[in-house]
């Protein structure tokens, strides 16, 4: 066996200073935050029997009569997801262009759009839903509004980031032949960023379905209201089918998006 000394690929063979410092600070922060949120292993260990207790409650016969209502509510949740994502997609595309450093018409617009997008995603869907419920009343409409709002914040940022990494040489090839500002976006930036766009939309659809599933919590439509009620009433006969249906829909969506993406790229 060779007995050569091990060293890192740095001039002096010692670990690089910056990564080591970052790692050390991260560990320190972890230790501090773990104790401040009372992450306590003993408490976690003692809770294990209670978790089993809760899980055993799930072994019940489902509430068959509830299933049609579940189907209708699940459908509403899915409709909310698709509607909100589509609305957000249409608005995010131009915002994404404006928020990309290499495609924005002006640095001032770039910064303004970035700030707008940050503001939109600063609060979670649930909080925006509360705002919109008090504005337009109960039902799926405030849910869709809240979902679109936050989605624009995320999608716009993701789109901007995809546009920022396009190959400038391909852009130059188009600009050199007299393409206008808008033509450059459609023919040079967009085709290059397109696979990333599709990936983003698929991920956000997945995320929005799960987000839409809890918006009912504040009366903003969908399956969420039933979920919370079943939870509070210890109605395990309903809780189980609701959880399973969410799992099934998310899984199906995930598989479908995988297939779809692979075909496009």
């Amino acid at each position: 066996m060779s007995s050569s000394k091990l060293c890192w690929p740095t001039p002096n063979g010692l670990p690089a200073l910056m990564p080591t410092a970052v790692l050390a600070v991260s560990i320190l922060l972890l230790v501090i935050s773990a104790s401040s949120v009372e992450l306590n292993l003993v408490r976690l260990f003692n809770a294990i029997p209670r978790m089993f207790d809760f899980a055993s409650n799930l072994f019940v016969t489902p509430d068959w009569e509830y299933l049609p209502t579940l189907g209708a509510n699940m459908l509403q949740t899915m409709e909310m997801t698709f509607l909100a994502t589509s609305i957000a997609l249409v608005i995010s595309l131009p915002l994404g262009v404006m928020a990309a450093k290499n495609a924005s018409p002006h640095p001032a617009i770039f910064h303004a759009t970035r700030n707008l997008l940050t503001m939109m995603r600063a609060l979670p869907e649930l909080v925006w839903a509360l705002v919109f419920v008090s504005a337009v009343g109960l039902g799926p409409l405030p849910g869709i509004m809240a979902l679109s709002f936050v989605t624009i914040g995320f999608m716009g940022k993701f789109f901007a980031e995809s546009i920022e990494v396009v190959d400038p040489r391909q852009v130059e090839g188009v600009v050199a032949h007299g393409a206008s500002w808008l033509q450059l976006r459609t023919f040079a930036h967009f085709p290059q960023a397109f696979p990333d766009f599709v990936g983003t939309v698929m991920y956000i659809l997945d995320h929005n379905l799960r987000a839409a599933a809890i918006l009912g919590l504040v009366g903003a439509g969908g399956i969420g209201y039933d979920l919370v009620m079943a939870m509070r009433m210890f109605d395990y006969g309903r809780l189980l089918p609701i959880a399973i249906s969410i799992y099934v829909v998310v899984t199906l969506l995930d598989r479908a998006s995988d297939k779809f993406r692979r075909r496009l790229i």
Partner: protein
Amino acid sequence: MAQIDIKNVCKRYPNGFEALKGVSVEIAAGSFTVILGPSGAGKSTLLRTINGLETPTGGTIQISGQVVTQDTLREVRSQVGMVFQHFNLVDRLSVMTNVLTGRLSHRSWLGSLLYLFRREDIDLAHDALIRVGLTDKAWNRADKLSGGQQQRVGIARALAQQPRVILADEPVASLDPVTSEEIMGLLREICTRDGITVVVNLHQVELAKRFADRVIGLNDGLVVYDGPASGLDRATLSKIYNRNGDQVDEQLETMLAYA
């Protein structure tokens, strides 16, 4: 009137590097000009200032009497095609769509937002593909083609816009010798048959000698030779490729052996 009139053009980059130190060249319509010079001599910078991809820090450039400024850029570029070392095609678009981007300066914004082109535009693009012999690849994705084929698409894109001038920035630097020969032949033929003014940056002295009407030698941001390709003798090449006064005779032997 000269097709391209470059007057005392200087370019200083923000990092202080002076790529061009006052270059004045007039290029006649329908001529085939090759710019030679060592790496970093300012060949690319000079070529890129002609269609405004770089803005000169001093001097002026006129194309067919029109001064190249920020306001005339689109108009200038609609008459000037460009061929790049790395082809600069949009990878994910079809060959046809790439060639059609040469027509964009004649299209409306709404039409191009929907990727719509006129029948005439498609015909022009098709003709350009016939010229470069790639009609069978028209509907392939650009990145599925070999380097030589991609460069042909690049030339077709330049042709499709029916330019008065084609600028080629080291068009054969990423290609093998046989393909290089074909590409240079194609550019020469375009110049001779269509009367398009062609300006090419090259590294190969031998190709310059064979294809160029006129050679401009650039060294350290200044024109050090301007004359026919036949005037490229040992002393001239030594002047063009001279670096900080070092002797380059040994390398020159090799270069002349190939020439």
